[in-house]
């Protein structure tokens, strides 16, 4: 059981540092989702199944979808701007 806790903590800290330092925004969103996943496994180990279910549904589902939708809107507008500048 100790090695499972150690593995999940290492995944969480590695994901958090990846969010700070990586350059692509899609990778940062994926790292946030990985942090949320490892966190929900840790909640199961800490005997909190209600909290684990909430964190899994909200963190890996809803939060990632909201972040990806916002990034999609920003990139779409950025692409349109660049195509306008290329046309002009």
């Amino acid at each position: 059981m100790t090695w499972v806790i150690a593995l999940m903590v290492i995944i969480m800290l590695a994901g958090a540092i990846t969010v700070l330092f990586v350059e692509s925004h899609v990778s940062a969103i994926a790292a946030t989702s990985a942090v949320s996943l490892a966190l929900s496994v840790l909640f199961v180990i800490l005997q909190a199944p209600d909290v684990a279910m909430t964190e899994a549904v909200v963190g890996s589902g809803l939060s990632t979808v909201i972040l990806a939708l916002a990034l999609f809107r920003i990139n779409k507008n950025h692409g349109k701007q660049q195509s306008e500048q290329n046309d002009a």
Partner: protein
Amino acid sequence: MRNVSALVFASGLAFLLLVITWQFVVGGAPMLIGEAILQQGADEVGAANLVTSVVLGYRGIDTLGEIAILFTASTATSLVLSSLSTKSSSNKKESIRDEGTILASSASLFFPLLITLGMYIILHGHLTPGGGFQGGVILAAAFFLPLLAVPGRGVNHSGLALVEGFAGASFIVIGIIALFQGNAFLQPFFSHGEMGSLLSAGTLPLLYTAVGLKVGAELSGLLANLAEIGEIVPESTDLEESSLQTESNGS
């Protein structure tokens, strides 16, 4: 230079947090109130899931506050996003496109399955791990999946607002009825029933159903607002920029 100062700030913050929280020992929680709830929760509230009895029975007003915060956040989000100037009316015709038959039909197949799963988790919130919030998020995903598969279909915003308002009002009305019965606000008041069966723990299933429907309707409206906003047309003040846009739109 900036990296060095960031490192110094991080170490100072870590030291501060360690000093503040040094005292509690992991694994030896001094459960003062928790012990009393564990002893008496089964008799007083009658729910098998003690976390549900804390969320709705002992700390019901905190759940009311959380519903209020979620309502404020989703209303403010739709307010901010509706003032982004959109071309959604002109995009409607070209964006009701089919992303493929498999995607559209499997999204329509998933819709009743997800609704069943969400309602199951909501209704059994007082027996097994689950409850209103988890089931509500699954309901929101059920309403959002067909929108992802066929973009431009849109959701019925007025229907969602009606469900959300009705569910929120019924939560408060159940609490006020408890006042008329002589108990405190939001105290569960039906008979306890048999522990472990679906109709147990008083009004707890009704309260969680109201919470679940409200959260589900709110979050699906929020997701639809984020996804339906079409193109973000930047507000241009220059005449040249606006003429550029009309040229590129016309061509």
